[in-house]
């Protein structure tokens, strides 16, 4: 692990903490009938697809474990599923030579669907109180719909870096 990759991971960790911070602001204390997207999940999925080399399993495990603790989820379940899912996703992206957008969206969608559905079914099987399948399904759809936005955002940062590097080299 070199310094560059370490710095990237620290930045991703801080952004992850920021996302959790905005999630737990006490703005919504009545129960909702709808569910927003799981922003942390889609942010790291976009990172894995764009920058597979900068998302180590350790980073993903630590940030998702913190989210587990704060969001009152069973600690360890969601983070274990995410680490596993993202590991296979990462391998897929690293082996791929050219990433088309449709391909990455498709594989991210498959991965996130498996993570969220497995999480739901395991918590039902182990009698952990859950808020119903409708909310989970809604969360899944919203998360998948948000993926292109995050992917474009991280992609634009990528290009920015490239352009900067080129101008520095030309000078």
């Amino acid at each position, binding site marked *: 692990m070199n310094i560059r990759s370490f710095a990237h991971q620290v930045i991703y960790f801080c952004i992850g903490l920021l996302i*959790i*911070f*905005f*999630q*737990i*602001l*006490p*703005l*919504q*204390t*009545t*129960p*909702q*009938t*709808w*569910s*927003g997207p799981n922003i942390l999940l889609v942010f790291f999925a976009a990172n894995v697809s764009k920058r597979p*080399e900068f998302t*180590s*399993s*350790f980073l993903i*495990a630590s940030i998702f*474990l*913190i989210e587990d*603790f*704060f*969001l*009152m*989820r*069973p*600690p*360890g*379940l969601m*983070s*274990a599923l995410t*680490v*596993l899912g993202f*590991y296979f996703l990462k391998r897929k992206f*690293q082996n791929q030579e050219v990433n088309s957008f449709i391909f990455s969206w498709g594989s991210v969608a498959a991965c996130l669907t498996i993570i969220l559905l497995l999480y739901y079914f395991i918590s039902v099987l*182990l009698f*952990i*109180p*859950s*808020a*119903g399948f409708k*909310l989970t399904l809604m*969360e899944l759809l919203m998360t998948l719909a948000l993926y292109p936005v995050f992917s474009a955002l991280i992609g634009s940062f*990528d290009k920015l*870096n*490239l352009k900067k590097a080129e101008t520095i080299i030309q000078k």
Partner: protein
Amino acid sequence: MARPNPKEADTLAPFRYLTTGIIVFLLVALFLIWRLDNPRIEKLRAEVIDYILPKFEWVMAPATGLIRITRDFRSYQSLYSQNQELRRELQQMKSWKEAALQLEQENARLLDLNNLQLDPKLTHISSIVLADSGSPFRQSVLVNVGVQDGIQDGWAAMDGLGLVGRISGVGSKTARVLLLTDTASIIPATIQPSGQRALIAGDNTVAPTVEFLENADLVRPGDRVETSGSGGIFPPNLLIGRLALDPSGRLRVRLAADYERLEFLRVLRNFGTEAIDNPGNLIINKSLKSLSDNQSTKANGT
């Protein structure tokens, strides 16, 4: 962007495989321990939150305030009509206040006549809501009091009017309040004036359901729902809300506490009421009993 050398990636691959495996194993182990030995891991959760949250406390309040102001901006546009409405409500409130004052005086006189003592232990600690549960799946809030302020698990939390939830998970500076609307929340209650016992169970909707009602014919929508204090969970006679029928004919509780804006909560100190399970306990005071025991042992000794 320079791609990493494929050969280098290959040499690191088994290492990554191994660390990922170990991490997943540890996480699954944590989850299984949580499932088997819940309280210990929940304590760990409270400590983790207690470690992280106070560091964000200073930005939490301004951020919440700012977002609320921008959200409320739309309502500023209809300021005039809102003002009129508030005036009307204030007029009504004044008459209620008058009634309340008269009742309070009457109550004080009656209490004085009966020479009645209120439970001195039932005092409260005020707290600020720092954070909510962050997802629509669970309903809870974090408050800024903890073990340092003498908070214990299971105490009741109220806003100005009614019961909000119970303390579930205490750190040294923070505590989590499980709201009545959460799916894990079940509270024993009595329904006045009929005195029927029931359980108030949250189901992740605004109005919790009424379960295990003894006789549904004796209660009507609009009846007061209060804590019963059975099982020593809560002090008795805290207001929860009023009964209501939902469209499918099910009894629910319309909560008295204002769940839209939970900003300040009162945590009631409750060290439990002494159980009187046989008539002797009522007559012989415990301290007296131990005194007499001491004397008898002394007498035997000499």
